[in-house]
C-alpha cells in the first residue's frame, strides 16, 4: 500500500533485491501497517483463533459436555490411533479424495480441452451453468435426491433392470462393497462443475498465440493438451485440488443424510464422528481431538498442494 510504504528504501526496492539490503530492512518493522489489519485481525481472533484454542484445550480433557471435566492429557489422541473404527474413518476420507478430487479434475480437464478444441459452441454458457448447478444446490437436497436414485427400487436399479442387468442391481448405499464408492460418486458429480468452470476460465487466459504456434508446428490435439493446456492450467489445478480435497476430508452432510455412516461403519468419516461424539454420545473431548487431527491433516495437505502452484514472479 502506497501510504504505508513511502520510504525511499521501500520504493526503490525491486523484486529480487540483494540479500544485504533486505537484512538491513528487517530491523525496521512498520508497526503502523498492522493498524490497518487490526479490524480483520480482531474478527479472525474472536471467531477463529479463540475457538481453535478452545478446541485444542477441550481435546486435552475427558468431558461429557455438561458436568465437570477431567484432565486427559494426550489420551484422546492416543485413542484415535488405537481405535480401528476411527482409523477406518480417516481411510474412508482418503478414499473420498479419489472421488472428490482426482476423478473430477481428470474429467474436467478432458471436458475443458474438448470444449476449447471445438471452438465456439452454441449455448456454452447454458451448458456451463448446468454443470455448475450441483455446487449451488444445498447438500442436504443433493444427498436426499441421490438416496432416492440409489434406493433398492430407485431410478438406478430400474434403469439397470430395463437394460437386462438385473444381476448388478443392489441397494447401492446399503451394500458394504458399494456404499463408499456410491457416496464418492455423488462427490464427483458435485465437484466436476466447479473444476470445469475453473479450467475453462484458465484456458481463456492462455495466449492464443501459443495454440497457433503449436498448430503451425504440427502438434495434434494430445500434444497440444500436454504441451500447452496442462502447464498453463497449473494454477487452476492447484486451486481445484485445494478446494476439492478440503471438501472430501470434511464431508459430513452427505453421509449424515444418506447413510449415517452405515452400513455397519462402511461410510463412517472423521467429520461425522466429530459430530456424533460431541452431540450424540457425550464424548466432547474425544470429538475435539478428532477435529484437531482432521484440521492438521487438511492444513498439511493444503500446504503440500500450494507447492504445486507456479511461483508468482514467474522466474
Amino acid at each position, binding site marked *: 500500500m502506497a501510504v504505508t510504504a513511502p520510504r525511499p528504501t521501500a520504493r526503490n526496492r525491486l*523484486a*529480487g*533485491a540483494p*540479500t544485504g539490503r*533486505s537484512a538491513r530492512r528487517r530491523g525496521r518493522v512498520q508497526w503502523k501497517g498492522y493498524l490497518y489489519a487490526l479490524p480483520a485481525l480482531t474478527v479472525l*481472533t474472536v471467531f477463529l*483463533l*479463540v475457538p*481453535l*484454542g*478452545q478446541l*485444542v*484445550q*477441550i481435546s486435552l*480433557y475427558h*468431558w*461429557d*459436555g*455438561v*458436568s*465437570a*471435566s477431567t*484432565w486427559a492429557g494426550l489420551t484422546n489422541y492416543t485413542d484415535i490411533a488405537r481405535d480401528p473404527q476411527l482409523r477406518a474413518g480417516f481411510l474412508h476420507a482418503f478414499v473420498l479424495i479419489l472421488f472428490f478430487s482426482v476423478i473430477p479434475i481428470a474429467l474436467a480437464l478432458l471436458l475443458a480441452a474438448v470444449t476449447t478444441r471445438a471452438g465456439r459452441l452454441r449455448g456454452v454458457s447454458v451448458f456451463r451453468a448446468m454443470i455448475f448447478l450441483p455446487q449451488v444446490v444445498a447438500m442436504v437436497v443433493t444427498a436426499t435426491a441421490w*438416496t432416492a436414485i*440409489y*434406493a*433398492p*427400487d430407485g431410478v438406478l436399479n430400474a434403469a439397470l433392470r430395463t437394460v437386462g442387468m438385473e444381476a448388478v442391481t*443392489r*441397494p*447401492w*448405499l*446399503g*451394500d*458394504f462393497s458399494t456404499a463408499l464408492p456410491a457416496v464418492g460418486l455423488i462427490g464427483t458429480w458435485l465437484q466436476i462443475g466447479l473444476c470445469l468452470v475453473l479450467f475453462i476460465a484458465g484456458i481463456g487466459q492462455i495466449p492464443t498465440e501459443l495454440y497457433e504456434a503449436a498448430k503451425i508446428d504440427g502438434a495434434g490435439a494430445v500434444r497440444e493438451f500436454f504441451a500447452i493446456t496442462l502447464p498453463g492450467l497449473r494454477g487452476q489445478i492447484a486451486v481445484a485440488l485445494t478446494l476439492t480435497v478440503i471438501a472430501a476430508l470434511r464431508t459430513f452432510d452427505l453421509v449424515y443424510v444418506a*447413510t*449415517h*455412516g*452405515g*452400513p*455397519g*461403519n462402511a461410510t463412517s468419516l472423521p467429520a461425522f464422528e466429530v459430530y*456424533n461424539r460431541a*452431540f*450424540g*454420545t*457425550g*464424548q*466432547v473431548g474425544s470429538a475435539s481431538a478428532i477435529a484437531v487431527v482432521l484440521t492438521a491433516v487438511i492444513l498439511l495437505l493444503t500446504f503440500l498442494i500450494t507447492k504445486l502452484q507456479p*511461483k*508468482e*514472479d514467474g522466474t
Partner: protein
Amino acid sequence: MTERTSRRTRRRVIAAAALATGVLTGMAACAPGQGSGSSADSTKSAGPVSTDPAKAGKVTLTAWDQNTDPGTNASSEALNEAFMKKYPNVTIKRVSRSFSDLKTTLKLALSSANPPDVVQANQGYPDMGAFVKAGLLQPVDRYAKAYGWNTSFPSQLLDLNRFTSDGRTWKTGNLYGVSQTGEIVGIYYNKAKLKALGLAVPTTLPEFETALAKAKSSGLQPISYGDADKSPGIHLFGVVQAATAGKEEVRKLVFNEGDAKWTDPGTLKAATTLRSWADKGYLGSGFNGQSKDQAVAAFAGGKSLFLVDGTWQAAVVAPKMKTNVGFTALSPATGQPPLTQGGQGLAWAVTSTSKHPDVAAAYINFLVDNNGMKVSADNGNLPALPPADYKPASGTVAADVLTQWKSVSQKDGLLPYLDYTTPTFYDTLTAAVQELTAGQLTPKAFTDQLQSDYSSFQNSR
C-alpha cells in the same frame, strides 16, 4: 512479492498464529465444564410445596418438548392453552424440537445461564444421567408425594426416571420426572393376508417363525424391513432377544446389573436367529439400503405380512389399512403375558435453576393427571396411564395397541431399550446389526462386539 519475502512472511504468520493459539489456550486456563451447576439442588428441593400456581404471581414458564408429530403436538397445544386459561398469571413459552434436535441442543440449553424451566429428558445414562451428574435437574420426589405420582404410576415406569444424585446409577435414588405417553415395540400384521394363509395371530417366537416360513413359501414378503436409518435394527433384534434371552437377562444387561454378558447363550441365540431370517430372505433384499419409511409404506400398501416396529407407527399405518391391521407383542410361552421392548415418552423434568419449580411441577402434573392423559389419548397418542373411560373402537389398531400396552406395562413385561446400555451402545448395536444381517459378522463376532463396548463402559464407570 519475491520468493524470499513471501517465505519470511509466511514464517512470521505461522509464528504469530502459534503465539496467539498459545496465549488463548493459556488465558482460558480453567477446564471446560468447571463451575457449572452441582450445588443447586439440596437446599431448594427441601422446602414446602405449593400446589397452587395461581398464588405464584406473574410467571413465565419456558418448556422444551419433543412433541413435533401431529398427535403429540396437538395434545401439547391443547393442554398448554388449558393451563394458561386456568392460571391466567402463567405464560407458557413452548419450544418444540424433534427428538434428535432436542438431544443435540438440550445439553447446551441446560448448561446456559438462562435454562428452560421444564424439559423433556431422555431416559438413560447419556442424557438424564449426564444432566443429573452435572446437577442440571432437580429431584421431584416432593412433588411426586404432593401430587400422588408415586401411586398413580406403576413402579417400573417410575424407576426408569430415577437416578442416584451423582448420576452414576440408574433406576434407583431420586425421581427426576414423569412421562405422559407410553410406547412398546411389537408386531403389526396384515389381517387379511394372515387369514388367507390360514394362520392365527402369533403370540410366541416359534409361532412367529412358522408364520414367516409359511409367508415366504407362498411367495409373500414375510417382514417389511428397512434399516438404512439404523434404528429399526435395534427394535427387530430386541424383539427376538426378548424371546430368546428372557426378561431377567435383558434387564441385567441393559441396567448393568450382575455379571450377565452380551456373549451369553440367550443373546447369541437371538443373533443366530436374526441372521437366519436374513439368510432365508424373511427380511427381503436390500434392507440395509431401504429407509424405515419405505418399509412402513410397503407394509401399509399390503406388500408384506408383518412389520416389526413401535406403537408410534400405529397412527401412520391406520389411515391406509383401516381395520385390516392388528398389533401384537410376543410372549415367552403360550399363556404368559407378553414381553417386549418399550418404555415411556421422555420424562418431564424440572431444571435445578428454575425460578418457579412449584409452578413447573404443577404444569407437569397438569400434563400427566387424568385429564392430561385423556387429552393425550383424544389426540391419538398412547397415554402412559390410560384413563378408565378411554376405549378406542374395537377392531382398530389403536384398540390392539392399548390392550398390549396395558398387559405389558401392568404385568411387568416391559423391557428397556437396548441402546440404554452404554452411551455408545446405539452406534455399536446399530452398526453391528447391519453387519450381522448383511453377513459381514458371524453371530459370535456380533456378540463379541457388543460385549466389548459393554465391558469398556463398565471399566470406565
